[in-house]
């Protein structure tokens, strides 16, 4: 290898937070708080998670009034019906210190629309919804949603009448939340499977409402950086 040769980067960029995560993880393994094997099992578990169980929970609640009552009263118990055991599902058998086993289903009505945020960091019901979207963790969403909910929802394409109560739920202690949206008109006679398909992740956070024919999250605009990073490679 000549002196002038520069190795191609293995990844484009490693953020400070990724370096911090590696450092803390390696220290924790050295200290014996958990093993490398525990960590691998945890990562594999996390990669199996997604919003589908929460979507199915919403569909079930639309179809079965008794199940809806249970979901609103005891989200942890209702989650068992869609295969999510908050307590024993994760490899730790007690959730995690950031995904506690307190789960509330927030029922929208024609006059109340819920929307979830964590102003402190990124608390999110990962056990039943998977990893949070990047925008959910941004300071922009977190600080603006509590202060200007109508404007932020409008940016997501959701404009609500003045007489609808928007209830922002700030998830900053141990309870995690999902929104049970209103069942849209035009879905009469639909099966649980059909209904599940229109309950997208954004509907479960509360920034969108389900619509027949819409089965994926709306695209978010991505703006090119004003001052892009030049790595020199």
């Amino acid at each position, binding site marked *: 290898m000549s002196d002038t040769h520069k190795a191609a980067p293995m990844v484009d960029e490693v953020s400070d937070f990724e370096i911090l995560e590696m450092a803390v993880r390696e220290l924790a393994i050295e200290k014996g708080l958990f093993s490398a094997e525990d960590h691998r099992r945890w990562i594999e578990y996390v990669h199996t998670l997604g919003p589908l169980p929460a979507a199915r929970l919403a569909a079930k609640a639309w179809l079965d009034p008794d199940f809806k009552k249970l979901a609103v009263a005891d989200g*942890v118990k209702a989650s068992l019906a869609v295969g999510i055991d908050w307590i024993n599902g994760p490899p730790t058998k007690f959730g995690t210190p950031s995904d506690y086993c307190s789960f509330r289903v927030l029922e929208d009505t024609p006059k109340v629309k819920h929307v979830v945020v964590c102003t402190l960091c990124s608390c999110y019901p990962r056990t039943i919804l998977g990893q949070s979207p990047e925008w959910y963790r941004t300071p922009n969403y977190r600080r603006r949603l509590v202060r200007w909910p109508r404007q932020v929802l409008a940016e997501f394409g959701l404009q609500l009448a003045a007489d609808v109560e928007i209830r922002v739920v700030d998830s900053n202690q141990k309870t995690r939340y999902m929104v049970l949206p209103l069942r849209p008109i035009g879905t009469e006679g639909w099966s649980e499977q059909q209904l599940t398909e229109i309950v997208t992740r954004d509907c479960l956070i509360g920034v969108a409402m389900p619509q027949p024919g819409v089965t994926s999250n709306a695209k978010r605009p991505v703006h090119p950086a004003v001052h892009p990073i030049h790595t020199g490679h």
Partner: protein
Amino acid sequence: MSKNQHDRAHHAKKASGVGDPQCFRGEAGQAKFKNGDKVRIRDLPDIFYTRCQVYTRGAVGRITKVVYESPAAEDEAWDNTDHPEWFYSVVFRQHELWPDYPASYKNDTLETEFSERWLEQA
């Protein structure tokens, strides 16, 4: 500290198969507030760590749900789980939090949780 200072897994042992905050059930004694109570958020010192957002301090809201028992985040951050408290979900009118919130949206609300130490009767 009542527990072995070097038992870093004590939380995991206590919560395994039970869940957190379920593992603190029955440890906080009598709840001071109930559903429907009007409460004001206290403005306590929060040096080092807190989960009580500054935008709620001094605001008056109503308890909608007595949620669970748990050590307050301000204690748990230092691994102190000796004194669990009741937690409450409190709803505020947005106008109470942000005085210039538009009057045409007076129905809008915000809900979040507090440990008992942050609340006083209003």
